[in-house]
């Protein structure tokens, strides 16, 4: 046993200092695609580049602006490869915009009226989670993931990310949980168990849709057996795209969910 204690000490502290200090791996992360040029000279075939229909060229209300729904982006990069003049990668896994508080907030460039809505949602979420900030318990549920999301969530419990240092814990029981962290496209088979888990949690509770699959269904979308994300099963508060989301993205979403990131005096503590 003592052998393992020594082994544990040998390499010193491996844990990131984020969010108190910046972390180069978080900042260097390649996030979902963005639109560099929303008004390119040639638009033909732009929408067809995306296998998940994340790109819209003409949506009626905002004519002829190229928009990209990051909630559908699976980071395949087909658009970036084909049209580097229009599309690129977002940088960094963290910050107040890496997760969204409304589904529409994930659409870039931003739809004009989003800001006010988001501020209102943020205020109400902060109010709801005021009591949770210092000690938060998470219940994870897989609602039809591809398995990689679970790996990234497990990484949070490892020595590099170590959520315990932030007062965040995972709990087996929904009765003890404040946050429901859901992965997967919303498989029909998991709709019942997910709903039961949600109902078993005490108020106040926050739901995080972790990953593009959970946000929109990703490549699977709506089908006979998937529900195009989890929002049709439980009400979602925080939307985190990524296929899968990085551990820093997950950490960031958790801190946004309890109001520790996103403005205010409590930030980043």
């Amino acid at each position, binding site marked *: *046993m003592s*052998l*393992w*204690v020594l*082994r*544990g000490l040998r*390499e010193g502290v*491996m844990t990131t200092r984020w969010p108190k200090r910046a972390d180069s*791996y978080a900042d260097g992360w*390649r996030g979902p695609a963005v639109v560099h040029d929303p008004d390119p000279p040639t638009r033909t075939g732009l929408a067809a580049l995306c*296998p998940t229909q994340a790109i819209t060229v003409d949506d009626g209300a905002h004519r002829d602006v190229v928009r990209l729904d990051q909630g559908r982006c*699976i*980071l*395949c*990069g*087909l658009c970036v*490869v084909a049209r580097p003049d229009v599309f690129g990668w977002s940088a960094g896994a963290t910050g107040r915009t890496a997760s969204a508080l409304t589904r529409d907030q994930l659409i870039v460039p931003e739809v004009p009226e989003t800001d006010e809505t988001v501020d209102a949602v943020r205020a109400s979420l902060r109010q709801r989670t005021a009591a949770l900030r210092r000690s938060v318990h998470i*219940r*994870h*549920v*897989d*609602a*039809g*993931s*591809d*398995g*990689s*999301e*679970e*790996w990234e*969530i*497990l*990484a949070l*419990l*490892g*020595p*590099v990310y170590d959520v315990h240092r932030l007062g965040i814990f*995972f709990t*087996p029981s929904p009765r003890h949980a404040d946050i429901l962290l859901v992965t*997967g*496209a919303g*498989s*029909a*088979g*998991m709709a019942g*168990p*997910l709903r*039961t*888990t949600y109902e078993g949690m005490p108020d106040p509770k926050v739901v995080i849709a972790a990953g593009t*699959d959970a946000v929109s269904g*990703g*490549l*699977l979308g709506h*089908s*006979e*057996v*998937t529900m195009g994300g989890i929002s049709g099963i439980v009400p979602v508060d925080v939307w985190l795209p990524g*296929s*899968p989301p*990085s551990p820093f993205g997950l950490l960031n979403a958790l801190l946004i969910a309890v109001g520790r990131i996103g403005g205010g005096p409590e930030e980043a503590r």
Partner: protein
Amino acid sequence: MTATLNEAEVERLWEKLDARVAAGDRFAGLSAAVRPRPPAEPDRTPVLVLSVQLAVMGGIDTLEVALPPGVASYPALTPHVGAAFWYERVIHDQFGVVPDGHPRLAPLIRPGSPDDYALPRHVEGYGVFTFPHGPVRSGVTESIEYLIETPGEDIPHLNMRVFYKHRGIEQRFEGMSAAEGVLLAERAEGIASVAHAMAYCHAVERIVGCVPPGPASLVRVLHAELERIANHVDVAAKLADAGGLAVAAARFALHKERVLRLVSSLCGSRFGRSVVVPGGVRAMPRMDAVAIAAELDRLQKTIDSDADSLMATASFLDRLRTTGPLRPARARQHGALGPIGKASGYSDDARTERPYDAYPGLDIPALHTYGEGDALARLRVRWDEVDQSFRLLRQVADELAGFSDIEGPVVTSCDPSEGRATGWAEAPQGEVLYDVAVAGGRVSRCRLRSASFHNLVLMHDVFAGDILTDFPFIEASFGLSFAGVAL
């Protein structure tokens, strides 16, 4: 090689299969597909075709037989070739075709009526009850429901319900272009993204008859072997966690994170996604070969050192020894894939038996043979494979050094219009099979079979006197992903 039997022979399919398996071929899969009739025939009702896949030296053989018109049943294969047990349940779920004489035709990937959620009871006895463990379980796990029949301590019978995670992957393939299909293959079983992408691309490349450029096949092997190391280290972390070795679990979690970070600095994705494409790879690694080799050395040194300590921690080994044994005869009969088969003395590694990409040109070190089949043997096989992977990776890094000046995609043209072929790759869990059919430039049917699907059913057979506290060890030692089971 595909052999097509005539309709009347569906009655004797089991006999033919039985004979092939007795002759040493391995049952590798069974699937069904609906096909339109040839235009010349007056009868327009579609036909249901059964395809049996058999692994032989150097390739995968397919035996095909169409069911006669109006017939929705055939004599079950399972009583003769036990490995077909879950496969026949899947085609029953998908097409309603009934294998006559199947021992237990309950839904597997699609739940039917509310009755399918009732708790089964196979064992009768004083105090025996059925404990439903899942689909939402403690810890961060994928959804599955284990139905554990127990009088309180030992586990005389275990059942599994995997349908919670059914995502309709195979149906989603239909209508995709060959290039889009690889994105879905990467998400069929997310922790083996590279192996799935490779198996899918091999099928597509076989349809076209193209061969990826040399550097591309090296990059594929680079990512496939890093994926293997990440998976095996993950299993070690889970076993250490189950054994209460907090420091060891943290150490292996750290090593796994370092492997994933290496992968992300090679390609931008921690899971090697969007690297493999039909005809080659999207780009060469972003690190130069010397830096890759240096990082591999550092990784191997720290992983080996901790693995040695783990394998010298007596209290931990005691928990694994004789736990969850898979008898060698059972492993052979089932054709157990990957480390599970190897730990029980049965090995059919696609990298050596049906080599692909850069493997034929690499020196693949031989593995030790084991026969105990317990959780300890499975862990030993994983460490041997990690060592093997590092040796392969070092050869790959050496060879990649000569291709440092390549920019952009490394592909040969690969655009299938018509045809069908089988592709395979050795995932960390074992062999992955893709049977891809393309019509009019689009995927018309894609049947995929993960090693997780083939191996998970063996959980039925490994609780020989093991008790509830052995459960986490046995589950972790299998190292499977349930995403790849229900699909």
